[in-house]
């Protein structure tokens, strides 16, 4: 990049926070998705809102593509730079929790605040911020909003979108746009926060986010149900919801998954089972929670589970969840590369989707373990492979395409919570239609006339 331009960026944020050397830039060429990396031209780390606005303006005026990056922990290639002349803007130093309001139940944060750091701060004030994506110990709230991150608590508590009250963001001119408010109700202007939510850095860059907080549950109860037939597990999910019980988590692990976890932990998991459900109910009254747990157990039994294990105390609960926590580590250790997919279907279609995944695994001769959020129909088929083996990786790519197809055929969606990014952009039209793509493109070009904000992501 032109030396004078680099100096201009340095004039905004300081010499130390502009990274131009090759090794430093290469560390921003990837994210957690298994995709081809792209080294950016320059990386800038603003520390204040003012610096952020100026950085955007300078890059945009000079026609430089802009990719905004938080922790780089997303699984869809959403922050892999678009091209060799891209400027990566980091939000990691914009990491202040500006306000936690206990009276009005909201918080104001900068985009670089780490999800779990925020959740702990909120919890220490006796409140609760439920969205808990798998990468929460590193993921940023800005990234969570930009990808509308989910997590394990979706069924009862919803996902990031259910907690977004408002925000401030910079447009391509470096002008500050304000939308939403600290109130429960607000109908002022367009719902621009709704538009920015899940926009994956393609419309503007957040500088401040207002998030809703809720009172925490006072009691919870966890149990594990073992199934010989995965359809029985799915039937249980439907029966629980039909009985008007909303567990805070309702996770499924298939046989492949269990086998890998058991090999890794030797915790005595039922590896001969077709699937297990991990269910947790919570609420404000211990008695009500106990009653719900009892009902859930009955339903599990009625739907064909012969082995139900409950947790009596926190220790036992911890042990039950150990299996779920170890799902990814166990799968990840089996082979060098782990391709974590995110196809989501209406929850009644979970058995059909698991069957489709197993059929695809067989067809392409691949190892795929499936776990996920059964209550949300959000499955994570995890393909174990070695990206350095070109022949094998071609089979992986074909299998992924077919998994998308299967999900769409079951009236599902391409991505439940990982985002579209680069990985799934080409599939967007298949799930929607040409008109939807054109409409989205028009919106995008109106807000980013030079098509510089994270080009090649979300909408092609």
């Amino acid at each position, binding site marked *: 990049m032109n030396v004078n331009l680099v100096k201009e960026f340095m004039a905004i944020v300081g010499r130390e926070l502009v*990274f131009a*050397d*090759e*090794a*430093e830039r*290469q*560390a*921003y*060429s*990837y*994210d*957690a998705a*298994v995709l081809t*990396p792209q080294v950016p031209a320059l990386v800038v*780390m603003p520390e204040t809102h003012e610096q952020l606005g100026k950085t955007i303006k300078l890059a945009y005026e000079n026609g430089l593509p802009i990719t905004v990056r938080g*922790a*780089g*922990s997303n699984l869809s290639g959403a922050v892999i730079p678009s091209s060799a002349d891209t400027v990566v803007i*980091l939000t*990691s*130093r914009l*990491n202040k929790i500006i306000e936690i309001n206990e009276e009005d139940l909201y918080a104001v944060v900068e985009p670089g605040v*780490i999800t*779990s750091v925020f959740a702990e701060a909120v919890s220490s004030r006796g409140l609760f911020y439920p969205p808990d994506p798998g*990468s929460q*110990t*590193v993921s940023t709230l800005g990234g969570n909003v930009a990808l509308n991150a989910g997590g394990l608590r979706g069924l009862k508590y919803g996902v990031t979108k259910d907690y977004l009250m408002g925000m401030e963001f910079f447009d391509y001119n470096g002008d500050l746009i304000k939308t939403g408010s600290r109130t429960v109700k607000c109908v002022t202007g367009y719902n621009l926060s709704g538009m920015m939510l899940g926009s994956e850095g393609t419309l503007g860059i957040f500088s401040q986010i207002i998030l809703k907080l809720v009172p925490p549950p006072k009691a919870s109860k966890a149990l594990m149900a073992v199934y010989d037939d995965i359809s029985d597990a799915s039937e249980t999910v439907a029966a629980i919801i039909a009985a008007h019980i909303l567990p805070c988590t309702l996770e499924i692990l298939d046989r492949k998954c269990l086998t890998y976890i058991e090999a890794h932990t030797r915790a005595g998991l039922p590896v001969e089972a077709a699937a297990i459900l991990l269910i947790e109910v919570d609420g404000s009254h211990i008695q009500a929670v106990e009653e719900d747990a009892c009902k859930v157990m009955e339903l599990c039994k009625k739907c064909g589970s012969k082995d139900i294990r409950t947790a009596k105390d926190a220790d036992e609960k911890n042990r039950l969840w150990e299996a779920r926590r170890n799902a*990814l*580590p166990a799968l*990840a*250790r089996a082979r*060098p*590369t*782990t391709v974590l997919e995110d196809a989501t279907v209406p929850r009644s279609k979970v058995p059909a989707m698991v069957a489709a995944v197993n059929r695809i695994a067989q067809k392409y001769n691949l190892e795929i373990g499936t776990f996920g959020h059964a209550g949300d129909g959000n499955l994570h088929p995890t393909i174990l492979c*070695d*990206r*350095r083996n070109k022949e094998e990786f071609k089979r992986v790519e074909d299998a992924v395409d077919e998994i998308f197809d299967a999900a769409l055929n079951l009236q599902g969606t391409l991505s439940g919570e990982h985002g579209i990014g680069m990985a799934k952009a080409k599939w967007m039209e298949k799930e929607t239609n040409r008109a939807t793509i054109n409409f989205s493109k028009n919106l995008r070009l109106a807000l980013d006339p030079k098509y510089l904000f994270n080009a090649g992501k979300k909408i092609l």
Partner: protein
Amino acid sequence: MNGKTKKRTSLPQLTKQLMAIDDRLAGCMHCGLCQAVCPVYGVTLKEADVSRGKIVLLENLAYELLKDADGVGEKLDRCLLCGSCRSNCPSGVDTVEIFLHARRLITDYRGLGKIKKTVFRFILPHPGLMSFFVAFSGRFQRFFRRKANKSMGTFEFPILRPFAGKRHFQPLATKSFSAEYGKINTSAGKSGIKVAFFPGCVPDKLFVRIAQASMKAFEKNGVGVFMPGSLVCCGIPNLVSGDYVSFKRLVKTNLGLLKKAEFDYLVSPCATCVSSIKENWFRYRDDFTDDERRQIEEIHGKAMDITAFLIDVLNVEFKTSGSETCKRRVTYHDSCHLKKTLGIYAQPRNILKNLSGLEFVEMPEADRCCGSGGSFTLTQHKLANQIGQRKRNCVVSINPDIVAAACPACMLQLMDMLSQNGDSVEVKHVVELYADSLGR
């Protein structure tokens, strides 16, 4: 010096050597969860400072996507090898092993700095020289030290600024532990156990009181002690700087000395020495002679941290004196080498909780790295300070009288950070507090 005559490797050779560890690099799935625990990333928030970034850079070097090996070397230097990422890695990538190996390869390529070469290849292998330096500086220190923190009794040494910056130390010992005790060889007492005592450089030459407390703990429990007079450094500073040649030389010297007597356990009050002996000597055992390899394997099974030795082997009893009116608040800092490498965190707490006159309080982030990492404090002084500041803030947040640790390197850092901040918190080794409880 024969170090000079060794030819450096070329870039194509380095690339090839890195390609040979490609399998290990490929194990990283780039999830980035290492960011949550990396002490360096915690300060800089730069991707090249966290393991995911470093592994990608090594891969890119191996695949010739990057030619700036010196640049990658500089990034690799910004790592404490604390192993926090390794214990948090979902894919189980052995980052410590990868980075140690990579440093060795890159040092072969870019050469070792003059200061490091002198220290590693000339001073560390000659304990007599070091002891002489200690005696000399110990005797004359009052001429060149300056009081730093009165209540903690620390000093600053302006003449050491080129090496140590403005760090605050405790007064230097006038005589090293080994110079005072010479060779030790006592037979097992009532415990029926005999240990080889490996004091470690810092307890031997700076915190002599730790070595003395260890001896008292052995003696009061009827443990026989064997210590050859001139044990040398365990080799960790050399290894982390990629100087494998001198590492191997130090290990060989120590093995020769340790061969001279039988012992049941090898015990050290230095967590870094124990992990180095148990992990690093063992890791490279195949590069030694058959006899030496067998000896390393045997020592691998016998090496123990002193707190684990007291609890797990001796099963020591604690005197309970019911009615102290004023208990002193003590907290504990988990050394990375102890908790993350050796899995020891319960034993030191067990001791502290059982000592009369002490009230144990857990500090926030007790197992977060303090930023010491041996020579890291010297080469990356500013980073070490920033990391240490976070640790210091956690310590003082619970307002303790004493902060205990079981690694002298961590203690140096804790003392420096607390002293720099004008705090008044005593820094003690767990074994010192234990020895204090034993009476005269």
